[in-house]
């Protein structure tokens, strides 16, 4: 067996069935936690493991959990299964094929912060998966793994799913909370942060599906074992969603710190037609474009190293762009996505994405001028640092880096 930590269903058939999951050591970690560990011990183990959030920001998970004040109750945990970043499809595989490992992680998180209720927020298009997760929850209740006084302890836990309505912004954690509460999905002001005033104004942990799926093995095998993967500051394994101009697109579970080159050539089978890599988007549509060269291809994919390229790793959805692509076309695609997805709450993003989309469309349809390239760049810079949430900032990344690094592609489209 190749020893997957997260994508274990690739080795074990039918792992999405509770009996199979149980037969393969499932819920041993949860049982151990509830019967033999204090909540603080669970939290400490996760803190020691160095696990960082897989939803994009890479924030240390244990630290996040530790922020919840013990004076305000109840606490909630919400699993972020909104997975809407273009190029990201890792949570989906986990939810479909290894749902119990994710749910066990969610349950461990609930136990660690002593939440008696947890939610799974799924993007609207995941309605079929939501039904499947509902089935899993029902199985767990039937098996006595969810409910009152688990394992004879005083700890009770219930889980619920909540389906979104198809808005990318609802992956942003505070918009997600608004959506669960039945409001329009728009981000909240911060502070207060969800850790102190989250769902229904109560302390809340929000974690990505993949993040949570890491927790059962950490509790079962210990932080030290987990740290055998990855780098000092970015320990553990990560699922890289590989797409774009690539021979073998798909999810690849690899230790953090694997290089782009290894992912693309060793695992992804290289570029169709043997073309050259022109650029890489490491974080889906929210990426700063990475100019592909030996230095960047040999950069390890961990939270610190890609940052050195000026490009955050985000959710590690690696989109490969080969030398047949005009970057202006790519930029228009991303900007159009953000225009479509801007929630409209704040002025710079609502108006800026609309404006950028207009200019970019003009450019790629050959109607633009040199001045339009500068204007596009200008509008992007004008938005930066002024938006209410990260979506607005994300929308400028490909534009700014695209024009900075691939200006010629834009100029080629301009009428002269």
């Amino acid at each position, binding site marked *: 067996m190749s020893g997957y930590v997260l994508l274990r269903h690739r080795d074990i058939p039918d792992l999405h069935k509770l009996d199979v999951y149980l037969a393969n050591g499932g819920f041993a970690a949860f049982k151990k936690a509830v019967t033999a560990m204090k909540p603080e011990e669970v939290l400490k183990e996760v803190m020691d493991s160095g696990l960082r959030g897989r939803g994009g920001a890479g924030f240390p998970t244990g630290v996040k959990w530790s922020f919840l004040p013990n004076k305000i109750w109840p606490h909630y945990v919400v699993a972020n299964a909104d997975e809407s970043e273009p190029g990201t499809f890792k949570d989906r595989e986990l939810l479909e094929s290894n749902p119990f490992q994710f749910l066990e992680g969610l349950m461990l998180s609930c136990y660690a912060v002593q939440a008696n209720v947890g939610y799974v927020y799924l993007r609207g298009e995941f309605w079929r998966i939501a039904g499947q997760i509902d089935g899993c929850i029902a199985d767990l209740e039937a098996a006595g793994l969810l409910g009152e006084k688990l394992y004879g302890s005083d700890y009770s836990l219930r889980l619920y799913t909540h389906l979104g309505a198809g808005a990318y912004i609802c992956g942003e954690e505070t918009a997600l909370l608004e959506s669960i509460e039945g409001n329009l999905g728009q981000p909240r002001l911060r502070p207060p942060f969800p850790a102190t005033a989250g769902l229904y104004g109560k302390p809340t942990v929000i974690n990505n599906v993949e993040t949570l799926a890491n927790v059962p093995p950490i509790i079962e095998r210990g932080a030290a074992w987990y740290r055998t993967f990855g780098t000092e500051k970015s320990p553990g394994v990560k699922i890289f969603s590989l797409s774009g101009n690539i021979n073998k697109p798909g999810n690849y579970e690899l230790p953090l710190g694997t290089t782009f080159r290894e992912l693309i050539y060793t695992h992804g089978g290289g570029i169709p037609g043997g073309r050259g890599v022109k650029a890489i988007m490491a974080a889906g549509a929210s990426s700063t474009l990475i100019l592909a060269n030996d230095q960047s291809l040999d950069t390890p994919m961990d939270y610190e190293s890609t940052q050195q390229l000026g490009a955050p790793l985000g959710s590690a959805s690696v989109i490969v762009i080969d030398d047949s692509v005009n970057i202006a076309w790519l930029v228009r695609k991303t900007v159009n996505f953000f225009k479509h*997805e801007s929630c409209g709450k704040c*002025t710079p993003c*609502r108006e800026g994405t*609309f404006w950028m989309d207009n200019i970019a469309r003009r450019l790629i349809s050959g109607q633009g001028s040199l001045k339009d390239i500068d204007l596009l760049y200008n509008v992007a810079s004008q938005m930066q640092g*002024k938006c209410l949430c990260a979506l607005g900032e994300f929308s400028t990344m490909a534009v700014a880096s695209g024009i900075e690094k691939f200006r010629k592609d834009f100029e080629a489209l301009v009428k002269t």
Partner: protein
Amino acid sequence: MAVKMVNLTIDNHPVSVPAGTLVVDAAKKVGIEIPVFCYHPKMDPVGMCRLCLVEIGRPMVDRATNQPVLEADGSPKISFGPKLETACTTPVSEGMVVLTENDKVSEARKDILEFILTSHPLDCPVCDKGGECPLQNLTMRFGPGESRFLFDEKMRLAKQVPLGELILLDRERCIQCARCVRFQKEIVDDPVIGFSQRGRALEIVTFSDPGFDSIFSGNTTDICPVGALTTSDFRFGARPWEMNAAASLCTHCPVGCNLTINVRREARAGGRDVIKRIMPRQNESVNEIWICDKGRFAYHFTESEQRLTEPMMRKGSELVAVSWDEALQAAASRLKKAGEKTITLAGGRLSNEDLFNLCQLTSGLGGQYWMHGTMGGGDLLAQVGVGQGTNLGEFGPGSAILVVASDLHEEAPVWWLRVKQAAERGATLIVASARPTRLDRFAKCVIRYAYGEEVETVTSLVPEYKTDVSEAICAGIQGILGAENLVVFFGSDGLGLEGTTALAAACMELLVKTNHFGRANNGLIAVWPNANTQGAFELGYRPAADLASRLAEAQVAYIAAADPAGDDPALAEALRKTGFIIVQELFMTPTARMADLVLPAQAFTEREGTFVSGERRVQRYYPAVRPISGPRPDFQIAAQIAAQLGFSLEERLASLVFQRLSEAMPDFAGLTYQQLAMVEEQWPLIGRHDLYFGGTGYDNHQGLGVQLKPAAQRLEPLNLPDVPELPPLQAPEGAFLVVPITCLYDRGQTLLPTSLLHERMEKPAIYVHPKLATRVGLEDKQSFQLVLNGISTLVQVIFDENAPEGAALLPRSVGVPIQGPALAQKEIVSG
């Protein structure tokens, strides 16, 4: 409790403000303007528009030692973040340094304004807001001179979207600031509008049926920072700079909301002044910066074509126009003959000056004067009305409010709003009512009684009488005992004269026994039917239980601003026996039709005067339009009749009448028009210079009014009335109980001329609980002949789960006369 003060500097000005103050407010307080769109000082910040971005620095602290890091010169080292911050969401902190004028901030403002303008239609020349538009003003001041956005790429959106019949939305102009949405949700608890869609497609929609179903909807047009929301009343009516502004008061309820009336002289109206719109005028102790839609829209009666313009005298069977001289002489000679057999009947919409002259005239003759109305207890407010200095806006933890027998949301909307907000701030609200009201959900304790048990209920709240009482009453007593301040509102829900008089006495007893009187923020407030009912009580007018016999016996009945014949068939019957009837009115009412002499009176918009609000605040209103020719002010007519009789009353100016009034009435002693016109600075700053901040509501330059001191506050001895017991209400076999309730949009004389409100007006209908209906044999939506006090009227049945099972509810002033609780029958139509 001392408030902690925080020191900071804004553009090098040292500023000291209470902890928790937002940077934007701190700046405003010292005269530094940080432009805003989404922020509004009456609502929680949302940080959406991003216009208020400023640079903020904070003193650096050494992580290791926890000591401030100092510059070489010993001053604290300030660290500035990489990003600008929104001044509207950032509270001040000690040592903070705020920069609002540097290049980075100016750039950011210009950037945000440019963004907003990319999708703005810039139809200023035809926009209602043009001339008083925050977007226009702030663009002129801080914005870019030209746009880099291609005009052809602008979004084209719907420009006339009716959210309801009162408010229209121009989608292109909306800048998505959510002020309207937040107002509806946070301030008035009517979350009937909201955003739909997202991004640039975000649009305001209404969720209610009828659309934008809120009695406060007009306020959103004041706080909307652009011309996106307009009232169908004012839309395309005038440009702001063409209109004059006059200070006035709302005449529709006892709150006494301060208004500004905008008028324009129009060729189309033959050169007359035309009222274009009613706006709120700030009075933080009365209405803050809000008014209800009735106050905003129901002014059309003053300009109605149906107004009386000439005196008329009965000659033969006809009323024919006569000159003022002839009319005054006729009145005088009739009154002289009648002498003490004169009865004057006045309505609560007259000003104090009118009421004063009328009672002086009547007393001079030895006659009697009465108030027309079915609510009593106002005399008690002179003793234990709320103390001078009372302000519901200050109520919070430690204060209690009891509301009994009143649906404030319908009867006095702005009181409802202020009581609700007091409860949200932590005041203990106790609601005692026979049926659910919209205050219930804000109350700490809701006491439900059956109609007829009002007095008992209030008496059982007196802690020392505590007997075997219900849980709700216990909670009420706890609330009262725990409070430093207590204000009691009493109304006339389901009650007539006898009931309200008794209820007032019970409320006074409760206040006296718990020592909540004679000081600010304590005492009694009556939810009167009219704007100046309290003033009439102050001047000695009382409602008469035996009015019919008194009218029948009078030789002359002098009736001003009242319609007894229209309101009560028994009074109409009595008037048939009256010797001579003089009616002073705006309209040809049923009473005026019975009159021998009809004298046309001026509307409140044409003259000046004063009212006393239910909180006993004396306030002035000013002439807004040039009077139409013919009618005279009520006080003047009374004085001119008096002159014919040889007594000297002041007829020249309302202010001079007021002077005499304040000499004659101890409660008004020393008060002058000048005092009533005094103002002091109010927070938030709103008005013409601060349009972007508070909205287009008017600031107050014309007077905040003066609250009268009740006798108890003047340390005079109290005269506690007995609390009468009321007979229980019971319906015998074959009959059922009907009680009067007050609804905001009734079909009264001052409302009907506003056609805009017709769709929302009450119909002649009774609200019946389905169970009661089954007992009586009525069906939903069925029309039937309702027999009340021997009179049969066609009414509709409306099923209402909120109505009590014991009594049907009949709105006042919808065409079915009702004075108090009454027994009703269903007329059996044979055949």
